[in-house]
């Protein structure tokens, strides 16, 4: 079943065609990676798919429903969630509270009940807290639950964002460079985490530069260059594609990728 698909998506910024007719089709339960040189439009594509930008042309479908012009919060309610390349942590709140915000779309009290502290509110707070703790545990941050979010190390913050996105129980999770700035050990953790997400039935779409991670974990890889699709295929197909090697991987990178696949 196709869970996310775009058809000839395009957007321009002041005359520059950042994304120029990109079509992709992601099946449920896959790990789908988008790679490409810097400036190829990967994060722009993410921003389009997650509703932060409105495309000039083309369409987006989520689980069969056309969602092209929906706002990010509407997409979130339909089971799409994402993390950010340049971390958007709620630094004033604790680690646990950050993840609790992720539960928002499952919370049922309104502003009036909240103001008056209706009995439903403490019940909701408790349920939210418990679900958030579970998500935190998933990424291995349970011990930091009550610390100020701003006090965590970079790698931990990346995991916090994932926990927060997980808390919303998405069907499709967009991860924007989850391994950026991570050491090999942290990257291994990310690898394991993503695999466990897939086991739970979540479709993961990845933007990444870390070729080892990409090749290890992806079912399909989509290569972007200058806002256009260069090619798409299995990791093996992509890493041995001469056009990809020339545009992005380079000979050394291709060898890296090869080692990952052996």
């Amino acid at each position, binding site marked *: 079943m196709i869970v996310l698909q775009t058809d000839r998506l395009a957007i321009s910024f002041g005359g520059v065609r950042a994304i120029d007719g990109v079509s992709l089709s992601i099946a449920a339960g896959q790990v789908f990676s988008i790679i490409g040189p810097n400036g190829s439009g990967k994060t722009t594509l993410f921003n389009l798919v997650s509703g932060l930008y409105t495309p000039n042309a083309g369409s987006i479908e989520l689980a069969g429903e056309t969602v092209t012009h929906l706002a990010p919060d509407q997409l*979130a309610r339909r089971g799409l969630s994402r993390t950010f390349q340049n971390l958007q942590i709620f630094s004033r709140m604790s680690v646990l509270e950050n993840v609790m915000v992720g539960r928002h*779309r499952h919370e049922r009290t309104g502003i009036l009940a909240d103001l008056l502290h209706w009995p439903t509110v403490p019940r909701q707070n408790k349920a939210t807290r418990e679900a958030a703790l579970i998500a935190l545990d998933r990424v291995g941050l349970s011990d930091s639950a009550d610390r100020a979010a701003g006090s965590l190390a970079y790698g931990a913050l990346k995991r916090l964002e994932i926990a927060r996105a997980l808390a919303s129980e998405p069907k499709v999770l967009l991860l924007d460079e989850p391994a950026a700035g991570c050491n090999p050990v942290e990257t291994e953790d990310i690898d394991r985490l993503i695999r466990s997400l897939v086991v739970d039935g979540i479709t993961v779409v990845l933007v990444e530069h870390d070729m080892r991670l990409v090749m290890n974990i992806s079912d399909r890889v989509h290569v972007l260059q200058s806002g256009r699709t260069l090619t798409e295929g299995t990791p093996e197909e992509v890493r041995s594609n001469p056009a990809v090697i020339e545009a992005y991987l380079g000979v050394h990178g291709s060898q890296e990728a090869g080692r990952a696949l052996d």
Partner: protein
Amino acid sequence: MRALLDTRLLPALAVALIVIALPWFFPSMYYYRIGALVFIFALAVVGLNLLMGFAGQVSLGHAGFLGIGAYAVAIGPTHLGMPSWLSLLAGAAVSGFVAFLVGRPILRLKGHYLAVATLGFGLLIAIVFTNEAGWTGGPDGMSVPRLVLFGWAVKGSDTWYWISGGTCVVGFLLALNLMHSPTGRALQAIHDSEVAAQVLGIDVASKKLAIFIVSAMYASVAGSYLALFNGHVTPEVAGFLRSIELVAMVVLGGMGSIVGSLVGAVVLVVLPQALTMFHEYEQALLGLIVMVFMIFLRRGIVPSLALLVARPRK
């Protein structure tokens, strides 16, 4: 009983204790008057604090809502034959409605654009009150008939002290409730990162609007109390200086701090009273206070004290 000891409610409890205990120290009726004024403004400030300190928005025209509440209890009984208590409720409803109308387009703006838009809005309201003399008595204002509840005329600084003190505690309680709720978390999230809040399913626009309306209604009730207490209302109640005073109280006490709202109100209500012989210096002093705090003590009194207390423990 356990609910009372919940840390969530401690600030409200503290304020309630202050309200009850203070009169023991009052040498004269005059002090009841100061106390009443402090609690009235603290109520407006807590509402503004929810908007500014908690949700991270800004309103430099909030006195406009103060004015709507104040003129409601003047116009209602005088021109429409409505009892004062009903006029107060109507004023709050009108404030909420105006906040809804104005908030929708304005809250899309950020930073200094939002600041100036709210400034413009506040000034427009003040202009309307100044010009529509037929309804409002023009620049000299109009008198406000006394509040009559169950046949009993509410008057006296001590009565108003208890009324405004009690309402202030209730207002603080509601604010504390909000802060420890799903809506409260959503608002804090919006403050820190609107974009992240959105992708987690938070309808940012409607949450901002909701808190804007709530804070407008807080100000409106405070304005109504002010007018009923003073027995008179002039367009200055909705003016630019008033709006800046309210923001100064928020900043002074500490943005996002409920107790800070009371502290800010205390400082900026008591100071002019203490300086009555230096009345001319009021404006210069207000300006100086705003500058000094925004430059050196941006966090405000209560959070700064809290930091001072926390630090030695390390």
